[in-house]
């Protein structure tokens, strides 16, 4: 049943790309998720941005170490079960 839904989606999408009526492409402004001009950044916005940056840095940091470890055929911790 869901495969039928997926098939209809593919037919509609690719069919529309080929045979859909041409319409003028919207101006970039109409694609904005929030049509209102952005307000002043709050403390929460700044903290959220810092959190995102910190998470990315942490992921990069431990990913590098793990890639190095696994690349040498090692494991970060020994198997716990005999």
């Amino acid at each position, binding site marked *: 049943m869901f495969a039928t*839904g997926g098939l209809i989606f593919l037919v509609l999408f690719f069919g529309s790309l080929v045979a859909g009526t041409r319409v003028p492409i919207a101006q970039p402004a109409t694609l904005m998720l929030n049509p209102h001009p952005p307000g002043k950044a709050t403390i929460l916005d700044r903290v*959220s941005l810092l*959190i995102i940056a910190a998470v990315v840095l942490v992921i990069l940091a431990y990913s590098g170490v793990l890639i190095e470890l696994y690349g040498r055929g090692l494991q970060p911790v020994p198997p716990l079960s005999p």
Partner: protein
Amino acid sequence: MFSKTMAKVALALFILASTPVGLHHQFTDPGINPHFKYIHTVLTLIIASPSMLTAFNIIATMERGGRARGGEGLLGWLFKQPWRDPVYLGLILAFITFGNGGITGIINASYQLNNVVHNTAWVVGHFHTTVGTAVALTFMVYTILLLRELYGRELIFKNLTPAVPLLWFIGMMIFSLAYYVAGL
């Protein structure tokens, strides 16, 4: 939106807590330190909070919109939603399915219950409700939305479009529930 602040808090919590949770599918792996498993359990359970915040925010926004369109009574606002819009319909069905996938995710993250469902068809059902429907269906309906904006083409057979999210949702519900039962 009912509360932008709530949405921002939920997003920050999601990014902070949902990145390192993958080990909740590897609790029986002896090569992983149990301390890391514990951390991932706690973080997985923490995700339930922003998930509930988001659920409340979306439903409250829907109610506010439905009442603004004239919906009255306890559930009258539900009938005033733009259900004929395939993008809206798809997003709400994806949202409902994500609730299903989230609850089964909590079961995966529970150390004892994980021993019951690990390496069974249950996990396949869980993935089909989270990634296979919540994510995939959202992408599909957004593709329909962006077709006009990005490619400058009108959708053909517009009346057929609501069949996409409906068939996907119903089919995936039957599929996933069958996998849950099979896994147990």
